[in-house]
């Protein structure tokens, strides 16, 4: 990955509509039941992940070589059913260590009014081919 990528933003994928079914499936997959109210705290990763996939596709990076190193969400308000979320991902930092790219990203999650719902910051470790094959 080239250092010129730092500071670049990637256009948001199509807005993500938060449905009760999506929240129920997400909650059930970690052994919870969704019974109305705010979405599970980590649910914003769903649209954020889609935005990350757009970034990986643009950079021709194979997802199976990517490991999640760090993730944080800062919340302005909880996600609720009916939200239409858009995510703009920006590459904040890039370090190269031992053939791996360590990419820091910031994902702004906004609602249909353009108001910030939460911000996700992530560190992605892109494992270099040479290292993996040793």
């Amino acid at each position, binding site marked *: 990955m080239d250092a010129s990528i730092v500071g670049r933003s990637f256009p948001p994928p199509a807005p993500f509509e938060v449905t009760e079914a999506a929240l129920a499936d997400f909650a059930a997959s970690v052994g919870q039941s969704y019974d109305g109210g705010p979405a599970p*705290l980590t649910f914003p990763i769903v649209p954020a992940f889609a935005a990350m996939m757009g970034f990986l596709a643009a950079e021709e990076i194979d997802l199976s070589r990517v490991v999640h190193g760090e993730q944080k969400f800062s919340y302005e308000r909880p996600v609720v059913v009916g939200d239409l979320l858009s995510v703009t991902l920006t590459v904040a930092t890039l370090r190269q260590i031992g053939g791996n790219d360590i990419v820091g990203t910031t994902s702004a999650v906004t609602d249909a009014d353009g108001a910030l719902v939460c911000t996700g910051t992530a560190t992605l470790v892109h494992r270099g081919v040479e290292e993996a094959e040793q």
Partner: protein
Amino acid sequence: MSDFETRTYSVTRADLVAYAAASGDHNPIHQDEEIARSVGLPGVIAHGMFTLALVARYLGECGVATGDVSELGGKFVKPVVVPAEGAEVTMTGSARVDGDETVVAVEVLCDGAKVFGPRGAQARLRA
């Protein structure tokens, strides 16, 4: 510093399949042993975000209201390896006051090793 009760959660490969479907994260390292090993991992590993979602569940079960959380995050320092027979993670939260806010650190252990470092997954609660 006050401690929350310790809770243990089982993690199976079926859970990871369900989480992949619900989250859209179909990275094969969370489902396919061969692919996971081919990229240098010890085997199928849980999505880091699966484990962080479990932390959020744990916080809820300890009485933390979702709307009170202003930040949640963690550094994934050791993958949760999920063999065919499944794995277990153990969580213990401790709360401390930081100015007007409360910070809850959740130590997550799998096979005796810390999954999040250095002080566990962290949640910041609004005053």
